[in-house]
């Protein structure tokens, strides 16, 4: 396999998957370069945690290498990556909710005075944090659909295939997720956070 970027771009995912099945680390590197953005963005949007997204990115491509023999090279790789990313991100969120959320609540309670400090207020005023909090406050099932639709520009049918749920369910989850997000971000009545307005004009 060539190291030249132009030549590696010409190699299809199915050819790379075949090389991967033969144990090629170079093929793994090319696939990582090609799809890492997709995996990282999806994991980040679902977990809301950049460190977790980086760990999931590592884990997913390691699984791709480890279980390459079970992957059909004739089928597109992206749906497999999306499915794996959403499933592992769901697992991460559930585990965190179960184990770490109570600890965080205790820590917040212990550091109750911190919420009154200017630094904390400045941190909370960050517009991007509001977007993150709005997405993270969605129920997990709605969040997955919203992320695949808005972040990855997938169609309803594609989301249905990836998450293995009916298209009608995708539509309803998207509807409720969208409404909740618009309400959280003040987009329902046409109003908008001034900071964000600045970012998008």
């Amino acid at each position: 396999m060539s190291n030249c970027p132009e030549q590696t771009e010409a190699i299809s995912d199915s050819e790379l998957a075949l090389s991967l099945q033969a144990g090629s680390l170079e093929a793994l590197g090319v696939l990582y370069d090609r799809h890492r953005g997709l995996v990282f963005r999806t994991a980040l949007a679902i977990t809301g945690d950049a460190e977790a997204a980086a760990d999931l990115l590592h884990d997913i491509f390691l699984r791709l290498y480890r279980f390459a023999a079970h992957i059909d090279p004739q089928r597109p790789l992206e749906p497999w990556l999306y499915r794996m990313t959403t499933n592992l991100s769901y697992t991460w969120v559930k585990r965190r909710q179960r184990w770490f959320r109570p600890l965080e609540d205790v820590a917040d309670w212990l550091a109750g005075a911190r919420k009154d400090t200017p630094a904390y207020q400045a941190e909370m005023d960050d517009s991007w944090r509001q977007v993150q909090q709005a997405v993270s406050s969605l129920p997990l099932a709605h969040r997955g659909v919203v992320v695949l639709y808005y972040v990855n520009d997938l169609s309803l049918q594609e989301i249905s295939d990836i998450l293995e749920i009916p298209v009608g369910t995708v539509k309803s989850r998207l509807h409720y997720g969208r409404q909740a997000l618009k309400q959280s971000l003040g987009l329902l009545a046409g109003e908008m956070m001034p900071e964000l307005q600045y970012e998008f004009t």
Partner: protein
Amino acid sequence: MEKKSDILLRNMIKNWVNRQRPPDSGRARLLWGAAHISNDKFDLAVIFPRPQFKSYPASSANEWPQTFFTWINENSIQLRIQARII
């Protein structure tokens, strides 16, 4: 056609996510981990020889130390040979 608020929402979420990028060290870390996996697959068979258990007579419970040390003596020879090969 998408509503204006939908387009806005899409942009907001995308811009938020695109502000962060995967770590630069991710590729090297991945390849290191993958190489380790493939090495594990290869080395495990070489490093750990399958111990050959024989049916030692265990007529009484007091004989177990003798049985244990006999097993170690026999298998340690095999382990040493394997270690030199590595």
